[in-house]
């Protein structure tokens, strides 16, 4: 049958694709060839033995694939990197020490002093600190814009702009980033869009499929899911052309010009699809060193295995709580994009059809004291500064993270004196509702 079509057998007329829930369990991993271990082993080793000197030189010079030293790559971390890439529909990823390290690595891979970023002003406080206070010391400036105002994004772009950056869901108003529109704007200017997808995870939204070019996570949150590790993941979408004539050409010399720090490698020539990722690993992780520990990678992998199940339960519980709060007399407002009155409701229906995640904010009628009394009356919700735990969490910004901020400045930041942020966990929803009901009653008596 030498003349029969050999690219396909008759029944294979549909593409072979592996679905999300299966990828969450298997992508990047296989039974350990050395021991048969089914779980991904924790390769708790700083370095890896060379077969001989030629092998060593080939590994260092990117002539062979493999691991040299765990700051650069590690087999356990590599499984996690493949898994998040598969789930995000990217070409590859780098596991780093934290979400902040991921943001930093993305920025320093793309630009240096004299560069400029346009960012949503509805950012996690740590990201805002890096952009607004720290990076200017290194010559990188940021203009913050209303994430809903595409004209503001456009107006803020300068000749020195190298990146647009936002979060899938803003903080604390849960503004939904219009990824298709902002990405289109970015690409019109030859710029990439970086998205922090921590709140949504790839289970709810895959920004790369809507036009984003780079995605990162604080894997500390929903990906690991149990509040036991600090880690970050930076994913390269592989679609952005870093050297497009008339658009991006000339803007990203770190990727398009010879790099003396690695044998004059020109990263866009070395890899057509993963030039960013290559530079981030060959320079950023090598020199800045914010790598992930293999034990951390293992714990995040364990979390991702149940990500689909957990995100379903997170979202179901959140919907019940949103409905309860929206109808409560002591609650002034609830910010959750599934609510019809949320400004981004229609956009959320398009981008987040499976749900808007498990973080919401609401405002209690009254003063800071009412908010403080509410938080301190909760028994199941834990009062702390984190989100994305299996356990339900709460924070009252006006009495904690923003307690020195005046009421007027709070309002400017979109935070009321009674604003409460919840991260809804996996407990029985009835217990959570009872906890909230009890605390609201106590707050009402303040």
């Amino acid at each position: 049958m030498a003349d029969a079509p050999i690219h396909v057998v008759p029944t294979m007329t549909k593409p072979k694709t592996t679905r999300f829930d299966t990828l969450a369990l298997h992508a990047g991993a296989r039974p350990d060839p050395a021991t048969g271990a089914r779980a991904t082993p924790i390769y708790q080793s700083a370095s890896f033995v060379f077969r001989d000197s030629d092998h060593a030189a080939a590994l260092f010079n990117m002539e062979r694939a493999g691991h040299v030293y765990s700051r650069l790559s590690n087999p356990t971390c590599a499984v996690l990197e493949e898994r998040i890439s598969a789930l995000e529909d990217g070409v590859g990823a780098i596991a780093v020490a934290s979400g902040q390290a991921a943001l930093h690595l993305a920025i320093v891979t793309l630009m240096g002093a004299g560069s400029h970023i346009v960012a949503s002003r509805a950012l996690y406080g740590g990201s805002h600190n890096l952009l607004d206070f720290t990076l200017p010391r290194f010559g990188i400036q940021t203009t913050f814009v209303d994430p809903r105002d595409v004209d503001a994004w456009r107006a803020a772009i300068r000749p020195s702009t190298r990146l647009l950056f936002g979060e899938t869901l803003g903080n604390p108003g849960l503004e939904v980033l219009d990824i298709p529109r902002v990405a289109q704007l970015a690409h019109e200017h030859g710029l990439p869009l970086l998205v922090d997808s921590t709140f949504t995870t790839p289970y709810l939204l895959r920004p790369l499929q809507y036009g984003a070019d780079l995605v990162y996570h604080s894997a500390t949150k929903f990906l690991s899911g149990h509040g036991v590790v600090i880690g970050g993941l930076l994913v390269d979408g592989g679609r952005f052309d870093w050297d497009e004539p008339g658009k991006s050409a000339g803007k990203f010399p770190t990727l398009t010009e010879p790099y003396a720090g690695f044998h004059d490698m020109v990263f866009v020539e070395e890899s057509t699809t993963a030039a960013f990722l290559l530079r981030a690993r060959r320079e950023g992780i090598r020199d800045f060193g914010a790598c992930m520990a293999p034990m951390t990678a293992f714990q995040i992998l364990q979390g991702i295995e149940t990500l689909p199940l957990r995100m379903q339960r997170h979202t179901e519980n959140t919907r019940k709580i949103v409905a309860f709060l929206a109808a409560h007399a002591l609650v002034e407002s609830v910010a959750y994009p599934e609510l019809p009155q949320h400004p981004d409701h229609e956009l959320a229906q398009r981008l987040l059809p499976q749900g808007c995640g498990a973080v919401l904010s609401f405002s209690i009628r009254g003063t800071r004291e009412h908010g403080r009394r509410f938080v301190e009356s909760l028994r199941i919700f834990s009062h702390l500064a984190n989100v994305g735990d299996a356990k339900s969490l709460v924070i009252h910004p006006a009495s904690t993270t923003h307690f020195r901020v005046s009421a007027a400045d709070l309002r400017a930041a979109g935070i009321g004196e009674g604003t409460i942020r919840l991260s809804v966990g996996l407990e029985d929803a009835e217990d959570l509702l009872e906890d909230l009901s009890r605390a609201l009653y106590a707050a009402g008596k303040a």
Partner: protein
Amino acid sequence: MRCAVNGGSVYAYTAARRFDARLPTLVFVHGAAQDHSVWALQARYFAYHGRNVLAVDLPGHGRTDGDPLASVEASAQWLLALLEELHLPPVALVGHSLGALVALEAAGHHPQRAAQIALLGPAVPMPVSDVLLDAARANDHLAYELITGWSFSAGHQLGGNPQPGVWMVGNAMRLMERSRPGVLYADLLACHRYAGGLVAAAGVRCPALAILGERDLMAPAKNAPALIAALADCSVLTVAECGHSLMTEAPDAVLDALRDFLPLPPSPQSST
């Protein structure tokens, strides 16, 4: 590096190494809707071990100008014109899939140009199914999905990339997505219509190496014997548990086979 062939600008990856006329040259030729970057590891090794390396982008692919060529024969003529333009003595030709056919055609009809040929994932003939051709003709994303689904062994569909941090299925998909409209169809049609493989094989005068993937669904190893038999001096390596994406799925096995087949010249200028 860049040069001009038939008036068009051509890109060839050299691992940022300067061309040295004293050294033997390896020319790598990629497959359908791909480019030089599929050879990054292997090309880089030889560039730092006493060879000139030219991992070319075929016309209309990657960084080379022009439209994709309509036939394997035309691509072989273009490749020979490139060798002529660079005044190269006989070179080692290393091709994958479509690139293997191009290397075979060039070496078979112009044996004086080839010192060795290495054919990865070859099949003669290389017919393409109607469903894939139809999807490629329509520039339907289905074509990329079908190829990606068939190009990796079942085990590698779920990853396990020797290259840390790279999701090889996604990377392969993205590389094809970046090809220009019509390129994949032109390439597949060229494979489909190529009928001169066994004649070309009979004309090859240099040593040949065939590297086959045990789990290759695109160009199954069972379809290679006629080609191998037609080559006068052909050694064969079948890579276990490997699909069609040999350089990605088994980069070390491919490199080791090429290294054994293409021994270092007497005065290597290894400079790692």
